[in-house]
């Protein structure tokens, strides 16, 4: 029994990491409506920036803030260079140009920081916490708390502020939004910036939890975040959160049932199964028809 509870807590811990990454991803995704391959690479660079700043002796809080801002900046650059010029082309085009941008970012990261996996300073102390006979890591509790706070804050931002409402309009119908006088370009840039900012916040915690910053994080984070966002329902923050948690649980379940070597296969199969039953995702409400 204790074994299963411990595995449950493992699943929750990794799930909360996925939830955090899925959050920033879902934001951009809801606008773009297409798998955003650049996102993972942007937040990977952000994590490296944080590492670099910390190594230079910058105060941790400032370093994290600056790294998040750098993520926002890079995301804005990617939007300007790789997305905006092709926004109105066939919908697969932005996907490919983003992939190209991702390759550029990953090569740049290897040029600057080298190919080695780097360890990340533990800004949040890490010690075993015992709750009801189960060992939990202090860090995963903090990460879980941060994800919950970010979900609430982002939902408030998107549903209760003027900017959030404008963003929702853009998401639903870009042309109509433009006609209504919403500065579509500004809103999109802002969403990318916010997505990059949140994404780097997630990737720093990801780096801290695994104690590792590495270039392959780019593609890894994209696929995990995308899967979590799809599972939860596109464009829903709550969905992204629960999608991430469920993905973590599904992976842990795969490890204890079929074996860790099958981890990715089984968790992907679970997601596909869920989506076959609920095509809009667990928290999605609409199926958006797009050609």
């Amino acid at each position, binding site marked *: 029994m204790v074994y299963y509870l411990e595995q449950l807590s493992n699943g929750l811990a990794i799930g909360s990491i996925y939830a955090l990454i899925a959050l920033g991803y879902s934001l951009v995704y809801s606008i773009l*409506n*297409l*798998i955003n*391959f650049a996102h993972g690479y942007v937040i990977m660079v952000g994590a490296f920036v944080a590492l670099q700043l910390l190594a230079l002796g910058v105060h941790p809080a400032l370093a994290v803030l600056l790294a998040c801002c750098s993520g926002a900046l890079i995301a804005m650059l990617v939007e300007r*260079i*790789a997305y905006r*010029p*092709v926004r109105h*082309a*066939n*919908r*697969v*085009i*932005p*996907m*490919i*140009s983003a*992939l*190209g*941008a*991702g*390759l*550029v*970012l*990953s*090569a*740049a990261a*290897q*040029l600057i920081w080298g190919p080695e996996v780097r360890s990340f300073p533990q800004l949040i102390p890490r010690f075993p916490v015992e709750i009801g006979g189960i060992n939990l890591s202090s860090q995963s509790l903090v990460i879980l708390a941060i994800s919950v706070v970010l979900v609430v804050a982002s939902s408030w931002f998107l549903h209760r502020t003027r900017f959030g409402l404008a963003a929702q309009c853009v998401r639903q119908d870009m042309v109509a939004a433009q006609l209504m006088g919403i500065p579509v370009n500004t809103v999109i840039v802002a969403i990318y910036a916010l997505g990059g900012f949140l994404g780097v916040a997630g990737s720093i915690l990801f780096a801290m939890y695994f104690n590792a910053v590495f270039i392959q994080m780019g*593609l890894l984070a994209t*696929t995990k975040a*995308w*899967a979590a966002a*799809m599972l939860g329902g*596109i464009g829903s923050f709550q969905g992204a959160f629960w999608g991430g948690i469920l993905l973590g649980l599904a992976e842990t379940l795969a490890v204890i049932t079929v074996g860790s*070597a*099958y*981890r*990715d*296969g*089984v968790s*992907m*199969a679970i*997601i*596909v199964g869920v*989506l*076959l039953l609920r*095509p809009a995702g667990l928290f999605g409400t609409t*199926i*958006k*028809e*797009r*050609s």
Partner: protein
Amino acid sequence: MTQTLASLAPAPRLRGLAVLLFVLALAVLPLVLPGRFWLHIVSLTMIYTIFVLGQNIVTGWAGMLTLGQAAFVGMGAYTSVILTMQYGVPWPLAALAAGAVAGITGALLSIPCLRVKADFLSLVTIAFNQIFFVVANNWMDLTRGPMGIPGVPAMGAFGWQATTATQQFWLILAVVILLFVIVGRLTRGPIGRAWKMIRDDEIAAGTIGVNVTGYKVLAFGVGCFLCGLGGSIYGHYMRFISPDMFKLEESLLLMQMAILGGLASMPGTALGVFLMIAIPEALRSQEPWLITARPGIAGAMLVLLMIFRPNGLLGLGETPPVLRKLRAALPWGGAK
């Protein structure tokens, strides 16, 4: 649309002549190229052209976003290699079986996905690619898992084997020409027209009585068949296969090639593949920073090409200005 009209019009005799000359030029390539490196690059281009033709049928002609074609390539490669090595099946049969296994799996996989729009198909195909990798990597008895299968026999049949690079080149060229003829007929015929109609306006196609689901499943089946067949050639050309040759990154590469060359364009397919293989090769250098930056430079070129030619090099929509000028300059051109 212009593309559709152009392809419906009877091909000018001179264009046929140009194609014939191009094929002849390719065929004598092994005799004139110094060394074998570039011959290898062209062979690889032809093999990848088969994969991307499969990708292009699904994505370009029928308009479905699949991101897991490498899994079907791998499925074909493993089917063919296992059949020839363990059961002594002659290669041509094994290659057809490889295509069939991949094609049937692809068609079956597509059925549940077609009711759902948005990115579900991309997710399922990505998931399928991951699952394929995990299975190929763990099913030791069948695939030897991560050890890979070395010592794959060369292509051949009836006691003859294409062992030299030149023989392999000609054999692959023959297969590619055959496939181009078949796919060309298919896409210009009623099936191709149905695919294009579904791609351009699915609701309208359904209204006038086109069996939307049936044609989509067919597109998937044909596309995956090509990938599986190509996979067989790939495995027997490389003489070695391992699961890490068929990862998600490879699928993404196939998608990039298809889009770079131009969706729903056969010459575009070949051109896109050639550039995505040849440009990184041409960028090789001893400069330490360039060794590291090489994949990034290829990525930057991809971004630039997407910005300046969002329809791919020879894709749907406008004719590239270079070609238009060329046509205008030719005595028989100008009609357009």
